[in-house]
């Protein structure tokens, strides 16, 4: 189905957020996730089902002031 991942349209076969991350090939990368603007903790990704059109944000540590 079609998801918006970090602002880009992607075609992914997945029923929950954890699968989506695997499908997107993030493997064991240290990332945090938000679904449609709400934070989804790592431990809840399996239990968090996703729908076509969902907006997923996947972030990681970066420089900051």
């Amino acid at each position, binding site marked *: 189905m079609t998801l918006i991942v970090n602002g880009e349209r992607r075609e992914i076969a997945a029923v929950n957020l954890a699968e989506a991350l695997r499908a*997107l090939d993030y493997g064991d*990368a240290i*990332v945090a996730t938000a679904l449609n*603007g709400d934070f989804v903790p790592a431990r809840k990704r399996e239990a968090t089902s996703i729908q076509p059109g969902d907006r997923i944000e*996947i972030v990681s*540590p970066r*420089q900051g*002031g």
Partner: protein
Amino acid sequence: MDFYGFSPRSRLLLGTSQYPSPAVLASAVRASDCEIVTVSLRREAARLREGQDFWRLIRELGVRVLPNTAGCHSVKEAVTTAEMAREIFATPWIKLEVIGEADTLQPDVFGLVEAARILSADGFEVFPYTTEDLVVAERLLEAGCKVLMPWGAPIGSGKGLNNLFGLRAMRAHFPEVPLIVDAGIGLPSHAAAAMELGYDAVLLNTAVAKAGDPAAMARAMRQGVEAGRAAFLAGPMPARDMAAPSTPVLGKAHLS
């Protein structure tokens, strides 16, 4: 000085952004002798994995991280960013920025207080980037903040302390609260002046990262902070308008 139970030796906090290279960043952090660095969260691309390398670098430096909510203009954004930061960085600390205006990057004090209340209630230890407004400061303390970070001048401006009067009043009004001057510091004399006012610490980034020699500037800022703090504790002489001879007048030979 107590930042939510942590009492750093160093009174300088350093940002990690805008350095020419990771190696220069590392050398600057070491030269600064700081124990706390600020970091952020940004989108990670699966292939690039920039964040993974950056995070490895920071961990190797052996410093505490203070994640920020830089660029957030709404309470919702800031809160969600804080939640993601807490998971990734495994710390309850958050440098809370709710930006209210693009030219000055000044805080939105309304959103700031609201976000501080939500995050404090949720167990975060909030370091709010705020103004010198005493009433806003009171609200932030009521919201649960135990540290305040008033700006010296706009982020990245390097102008120093724009409102000396306001900063002095803030220190006088909150003698017990840890106060950190955050943003606007451009030179060690600015950092020293902040500490001479009695501020507990200084947080800066651009002045070091954009210096010709970031590591050298980091060391200079460290010294400026230490100098200002030491002077504050040493009990400075009061300034006076007229002169007073330093060399004793008594006993001067008459040679005319």
